[in-house]
């Protein structure tokens, strides 16, 4: 022992130092990606990337409530003026100006390239006559003053045509000139940040700037209230919540567990020794995730709180159950303690290992974290801790407490049939609720509060902000192919718009037509002499003087000699920004996005039947055109992940049973260990169900962990019965006491999570904490008589 001690200590110290070094270099993230399933196909992954970082992720929806309409309009205008001047924002719009002066000039200059209406037919005598007539009609209208200057240089109305194309989005309601909700109670603005969706710090800074600008625009005391939404708000909120929760809950759980252990050990030294495996395990867990996954999610640290409660168990078993011989000072560890702890660790690892292949990064990190953490905690308990135990173990005398508990637990044995009946009832409850048992909505996992999600929906609807719930994605090997595909898909979508199937759509070719389309447009333009002749013929029956249209003839002539528009030409305009959101490439593949807009008065009542869109676009080359309903897609994905989680859990359960079968070598004993755990699972699931909670994937994982964690207690009861015949029993009360303390720590570890505001943490905690407690009670209730033999014997003697 004297030579083993420094060796074990040295190895441990070196290990801890190495782990600390790894963690010091680890990358931590607190974004939402832990909640987004990894998508199976690269195209879908890319799509979600774009949705996370594309236009929609740059938008912050702003509402101003309270006060009167004039005050709101004034604050909105002040907010816009202040924010527009800041470099953090690409644009801030309150409805005062949609197509800016610069953009209008650009559109006018390139009208013969950008207008989708330009064709040979339009520039024939008949075509010109029809267009001229339409322009003349405009002069009669109240907007005549606008139409008049255009009549000379653009009598075919191309500029208007393009403006109509760009304006296809629909304009929000207005009050006092600025955007407003339809009920007029909210002024609305739309800010576009330069920071991308994944730049949470940049988004946080942009939000802070908006709040500061609002405080300046409406200095307190004010009746005005600022509302913010959008994915930036969600990302920042989620990060803050997770950070805050992890800090708060780990502190709470540490304080509670340390308090409990102090109560039990009554010694600082013992406490520190008891926490040694926990700290080592936690370090190992974080380091393993950092090495294995590259990035440690904040949420993993949240899950890791549970490890504190669980890994402390091993040292509790050791410290409470072992004793020093009074004379020799030799350490007496109960026979088979290590075997029981080892088996418990292995069953837990089986449970957590089934999380490793999970498609949710947060879950697979939890698996890795826990496996390494528990393994190291157990190893440190086994190899290092015994070397460090002081010569005298100062400890509260736990035997009376254990004995009292034992009598209580023994009495619970009588409830065995009742517990079995309860299990049957729970199974019945679950069976009758089987239809509504599972929550199939991915949003249930989002750390963003439901109220915030509802506000987002409201503001988005009121602002007509880009909605990416239905979209078509075209892809191809280069930009030109993608643009041409977008054009042909656009023609098919136009037919759907005509039938009212969809209200409209956005497309990259609105901003940058394909080179082919541009060339065709230019080639359809007649030369000056021909055009002059056609203008003369077309105006013969019209009140227009042909010579007044000379600027038009000149403009067409110069357009004929211009080169097609390149993407770079759009850069200084807001059209370029819009294009960037709809057209991008990744490696060698190009993608174009065509978000669809529902027709509010259409046959589907403001909804889109993606099936019909799919049918309409069926003729396109497969793979090049993809129609997506994001809600359907994510729900379908989530459904498949739920199925995956069910499979993984069943595999985990099977592995645990197999492990127990190998270790215990008796089907009866395996059944005895498993039965209380299954009952605990049924009871927790039924309780959640009766409480109106729909089970998420995290509840499911929690149920698996009830088995993985609870098996530790069941194994101790099994050990008792196995030893009953042979071993001495003076340590039995101590075993029971250590079980109770260990169980309390586990319940605390998971229990604090149940109070989290982050749904994934809450769901897991709310499942495992009561489950672990029930697992202990049920194990006692169903334990064989032999487990309590001495007590019953003692009682018999009374």
């Amino acid at each position, binding site marked *: 022992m004297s030579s083993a001690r420094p060796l074990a200590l040295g190895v441990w110290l070196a290990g801890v130092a190495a782990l600390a070094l790894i963690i010091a270099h680890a990358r931590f993230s607190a974004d939402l990606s832990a909640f987004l399933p990894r998508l199976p196909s690269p195209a879908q992954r890319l799509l979600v990337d774009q949705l996370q970082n594309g236009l929609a992720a740059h938008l912050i929806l702003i509402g101003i409530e309270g006060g009167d309409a*004039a005050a709101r309009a004034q604050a909105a205008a002040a907010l816009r003026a202040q924010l527009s001047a800041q470099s953090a924002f690409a644009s801030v719009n309150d409805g005062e100006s949609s197509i800016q002066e610069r953009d209008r000039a650009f559109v006018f200059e390139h009208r013969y390239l950008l207008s989708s209406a330009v064709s040979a037919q339009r520039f024939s005598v008949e075509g010109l006559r029809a267009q001229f007539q339409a322009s003349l009609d405009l002069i009669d209208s109240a907007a005549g003053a606008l139409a008049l200057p255009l009549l000379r240089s653009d009598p075919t109305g191309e500029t208007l045509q393009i403006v109509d194309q760009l304006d296809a989005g629909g304009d929000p309601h207005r009050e006092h000139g600025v955007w407003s909700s339809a009920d007029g109670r909210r002024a609305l603005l739309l800010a576009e940040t330069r920071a991308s969706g994944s730049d949470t710090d940049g988004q946080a800074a942009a939000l802070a700037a908006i709040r500061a600008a609002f405080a300046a625009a409406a200095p307190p005391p004010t009746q005005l209230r600022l509302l913010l939404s959008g994915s930036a708000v969600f990302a920042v909120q989620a990060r803050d919540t997770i950070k805050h929760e992890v800090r708060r809950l780990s502190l709470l759980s540490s304080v509670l567990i340390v308090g409990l252990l102090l109560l039990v050990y009554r010694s600082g030294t013992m406490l520190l020794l008891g926490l040694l495996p926990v700290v080592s395990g936690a370090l190992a867990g974080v380091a393993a995730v950092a090495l294995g996954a590259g990035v440690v999610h904040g949420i993993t640290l949240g899950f890791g709180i549970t490890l504190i409660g669980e890994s402390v168990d091993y040292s509790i078993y050791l410290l409470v159950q072992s004793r020093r011989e009074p004379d020799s000072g030799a350490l007496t560890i109960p026979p088979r303690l290590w075997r029981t702890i080892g088996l418990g660790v292995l069953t837990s690892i089986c449970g957590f290992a089934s999380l490793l292949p999970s498609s949710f990064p947060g879950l697979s990190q939890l698996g890795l974290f826990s496996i390494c953490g528990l393994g190291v905690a157990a190893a440190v308990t086994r190899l290092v801790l015994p070397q460090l135990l002081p010569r005298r173990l100062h400890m509260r005398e736990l035997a009376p407490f254990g004995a009292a508990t034992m009598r209580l637990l023994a009495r619970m044995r009588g409830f065995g049939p009742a517990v079995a009946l309860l299990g049957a009832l729970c199974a019945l409850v679950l069976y009758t609720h089987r239809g509504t048992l599972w929550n199939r909505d991915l949003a249930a996992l989002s750390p963003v509060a439901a109220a915030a999600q509802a506000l987002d929906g409201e503001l988005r609807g009121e602002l007509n902000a880009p909605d990416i719930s239905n979209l078509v994605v075209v892809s191809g090997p280069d930009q030109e192919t993608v643009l041409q595909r977008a054009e042909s898909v656009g023609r098919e979508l136009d037919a759907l718009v005509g039938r009212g199937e969809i209200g409209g759509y956005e497309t990259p070719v609105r901003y940058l037509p394909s080179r082919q389309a541009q060339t065709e447009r230019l080639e359809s333009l007649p030369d000056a002499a021909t055009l002059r002749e056609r203008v003369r013929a077309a105006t013969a029956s019209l009140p227009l003087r042909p010579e007044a249209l000379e600027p038009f003839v000149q403009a067409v002539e110069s357009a004929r000699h211009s080169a097609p528009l390149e993407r770079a030409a759009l850069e200084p305009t807001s059209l370029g920004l819009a294009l960037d959101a709809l057209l991008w490439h990744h490696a060698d593949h190009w993608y174009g996005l065509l978000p669809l807009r529902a027709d509010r008065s259409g046959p589907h009542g403001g909804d889109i039947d993606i099936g019909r869109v799919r049918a309409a676009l069926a003729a396109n080359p497969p793979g090049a055109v993809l129609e997506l309903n994001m809600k359907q897609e994510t729900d379908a994905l989530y459904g498949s992940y739920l199925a995956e989680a069910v499979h993984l859990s069943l595999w985990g359960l099977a592995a645990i049973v197999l492990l127990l079968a190998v270790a215990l070598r008796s089907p009866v004993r395996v059944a005895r260990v498993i039965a209380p755990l299954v009952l605990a699972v049924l009871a927790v699931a039924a309780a959640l169900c009766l409480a109106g909670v729909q089970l998420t994937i995290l509840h499911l994982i929690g149920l698996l962990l009830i088995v993985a964690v609870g098996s530790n207690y069941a194994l101790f009861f099994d050990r008792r019965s196995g030893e009953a015949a042979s071993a001495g029993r003076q340590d039995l009360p101590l075993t029971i006491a250590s079980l109770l303390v260990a169980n309390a720590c586990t319940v605390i570890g998971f229990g604090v999570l149940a109070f989290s505001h982050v749904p994934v943490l809450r769901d897991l905690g709310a499942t495992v904490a009561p489950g672990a407690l029930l697992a202990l009670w049920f194990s006692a209730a169903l334990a064989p008589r032999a487990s309590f033999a001495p007590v019953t014997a003692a009682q018999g003697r009374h």
Partner: protein
Amino acid sequence: MSPRRRRRGPAAWACASLALALLSGMSHAAAAEDGTLDELMALLAQRRHGEADFQQTQYLAVLKQPQRSEGVLSYDAPDHLEQRTLKPRAQSAVLDHGVLTLTSGARRRTLRLDDYPQLAPLIDSMRATLAGDRAALERRFELHLTGDLAHWQLDLQPRDERLAAIVQRIHLLGERDEIREVEVQQSDGDRSLMIIQPRP
């Protein structure tokens, strides 16, 4: 500036009109004319609703001959103005809260008046006159009123050069709270005349 006017308009307008009234009072506007103008504006402001037939003739350089159109105008105080053209082709223009919606056949276009500085003064001059919104008028134009309330003539001359480059002058003729004629003289020589016949 009458108390009625102040009660009607939003606070910002009231402040602006007060400032403008002080300025114009100090500079050139005669006190007597100012009084009549206020009376006229108050009279117009009382009118909450109106409907009238119109005939418009445009004398434009691009046209071989003047172009005529006719239809119905309707107005609801203070900022809703509709022009429904019936001949030669049915179309409508609706100005509401500063947004102009043009409808022609199935086609519908929406413009923010403020986005189009060449258009806004022309349309808003009529609306502001109907509303008796002197502040809005004086933001862009110098006002010259002649005649009496029974037969008045209001001349609008652009204050800033950019507007003057487009519009030389707008001439409104009216009887009490009714506008009977609007003549717009463009700076490039084009001209339009609208004759208004109030419906009973």
